[in-house]
């Protein structure tokens, strides 16, 4: 081999140059993931995270009281079905924000879910979701993945998003998809071309499986591990609207809480080391009444709780400005003392590496929301 001084220097300089450039890039590009679980129907914060030692609760809902609680601190516990979350709590990787809600008090599912996703104040006014706008601000085109069939409003507001919800039957062979691509190219259909490129570049992890939450969350944990793959995953769980037969340790609401726990468990086990760079956050449109109704259920209310898990949390804590059960909102619901949008904005700031003020201004139209980044998340 002919090795001159010049070629040796060129080679080594090139390695140095490339290596030197890469180091800071690598250091800055730790991929952080955000997993959103939309709890549709209105989760009862007082069932998921029951209050301990407030005798008043007995007079309101004697049939809905939990026999067992997984104790968090002197004031709050977890529902027994949230056992994975409780284990994570012991490891310092689970938190709760209690007595919180989006600023919406009209108790309609449709309006409420619309506002929970848009982050606005007037139903149906906004056509984009707060997460979509946040991703746009962070310039993360194509990094959102919905594990639901219609693209949720939450992720709208950015050109390219992906969704995955396996079909029952088989796709045509890849050659045919390529031929369709040629047809779209010939007709210069930019939008269709973009979509078919996304479809053709799907990794193997985004194939197969079924439509159960168990399978979807296992898939999601694999997809999120990919360093170049999506950073955002959005799940939907429906059926929290327990007007009758809400149950206590077992029952309608307990089954739904178990589903949340399954998703968190699969993500925790599947993500492995990446769980430390992940934040899981739940959304719900409103809480439920404190008092039980004649059918042993609860009606639409106001204040609820946000469940969080993941290594991006600062520590395990229940963040709340507890309003107590003596003074209820409109004599029926738990008060909301924290605007949930402040939590959403703080979470986005922690995961997408954006300044809170920037998010407040560009995503939430300078609404009056507070910054909880310091208190809740590793920054």
């Amino acid at each position, binding site marked *: 081999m002919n090795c001159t001084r010049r070629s040796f220097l060129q080679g080594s300089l090139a390695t140095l140059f490339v290596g030197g450039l890469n180091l800071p890039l690598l250091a800055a590009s730790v991929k952080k993931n955000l997993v959103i679980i939309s709890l549709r129907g209105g989760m009862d914060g007082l069932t998921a995270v029951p209050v301990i030692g407030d005798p008043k609760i007995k007079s309101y809902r004697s049939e809905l009281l939990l026999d067992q609680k997984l104790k968090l601190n002197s004031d709050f516990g977890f529902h027994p079905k949230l056992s994975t979350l409780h284990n994570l709590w012991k490891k310092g990787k689970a938190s709760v924000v209690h007595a919180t809600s989006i600023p919406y008090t009209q108790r309609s599912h449709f309006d409420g879910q619309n506002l929970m996703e848009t982050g606005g104040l007037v139903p*149906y006014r906004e056509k984009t979701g707060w997460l979509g706008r946040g991703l746009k601000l962070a310039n993360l085109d194509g990094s959102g993945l*919905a594990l639901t069939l219609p693209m949720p409003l939450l992720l709208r507001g950015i050109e390219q998003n992906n969704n995955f919800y396996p*079909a029952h039957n*088989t796709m*045509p062979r890849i050659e045919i998809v390529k031929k369709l691509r040629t047809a779209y190219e010939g*007709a210069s259909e930019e939008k*269709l071309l973009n979509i078919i490129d996304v*479809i053709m570049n799907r990794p193997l992890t985004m194939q197969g499986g079924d439509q159960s939450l168990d399978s979807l969350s296992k898939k999601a944990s694999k997809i999120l591990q990919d360093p170049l793959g999506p950073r955002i995953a959005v799940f939907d769980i429906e059926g929290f609207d327990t007007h009758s037969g809400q149950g206590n340790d077992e029952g309608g609401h307990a089954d739904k809480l178990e589903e949340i726990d399954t998703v968190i468990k699969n993500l925790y086990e599947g993500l492995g080391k990446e769980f430390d760079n992940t934040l899981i956050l739940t959304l719900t449109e409103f809480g439920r009444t404190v008092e039980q109704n004649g059918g042993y259920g609860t009606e639409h209310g106001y204040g609820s709780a946000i469940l969080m898990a993941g290594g991006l949390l600062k520590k395990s804590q229940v963040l709340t400005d507890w309003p107590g059960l003596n003074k209820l909102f409109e004599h029926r619901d738990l008060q909301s003392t924290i605007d949930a949008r402040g939590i959403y904005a703080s979470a986005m700031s922690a995961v997408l590496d954006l300044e809170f003020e920037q998010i407040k201004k560009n995503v939430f139209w300078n609404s009056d929301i507070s910054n909880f980044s310091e208190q809740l998340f590793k920054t």
Partner: protein
Amino acid sequence: MAKILTGWAKKWSKKNSWAGPLVFQPELHEMGQKNILGKSYNTKENKMTGNKQLFAVIKDLCNHKSCREFIAKKLCQHFITDEPSQEMIDPIIQAWVKSDGFLPEIHKATMKVAFEYGNKHKKFLMPEPWLIQNAKMLNFKHYWGPDRYVFKPGKIPPKRERNIQWILEDLGHPVFKPSQPNGFIDNEEEWTSPELMIRRMVYANQFQTYLKNIRRENQSTYDDEFFENIIYKNFSNPENALKTVFSANSTQNRFVMFANMPEVLKT
């Protein structure tokens, strides 16, 4: 408005707990004067019975200026583009005013506007019209038409009648179950996510399986001539469409190409 609607309910009976006609029950009606959009109903001077109030409000709402504008815009959004211009909307509003809301006239005006602007704006179809368009062009009868439905209240419809419902559910357009009360969102972004595009390819890939469910006399031979016939009959640029379809060799793949061509996906 909610106060005016009070008293209207389904008539419950032990025999028929499933469905029934809507009736007005005066004892459940909220008394007193109601104000809607600046107009008062059931005032002291002009007393009205509860059911008459509802019809009076509906009449006034239909004749409201915003109603015309809203419906005309929706029609343009459905047939032409997500963001229709005022020039597209105006002729429909005029037809409405001129004919005092006579539907055939409004539809005629809509079709005229759609033909005028349709070539410039190609609207991406929602799954349901896309499916029906495919079935009509290909003369597919793998689900029943309305002529064969037997509606029996209280009975679950048989499997064959529900087939179309399941297909639409797979395509992401479950017709009876929009997630919001204002129905499905009629804009392109809603229907062009990757998974929904995949669903259309998957569905078209099953056409041959569906053929097995069709009565023999309704089937055709799906050879070159079949595709040539339907394409020359239905397309403004048949050569291009033929080239696309014939770039695949097997019948199954030709169905996939046909159903997912830009010309079929869009208006």
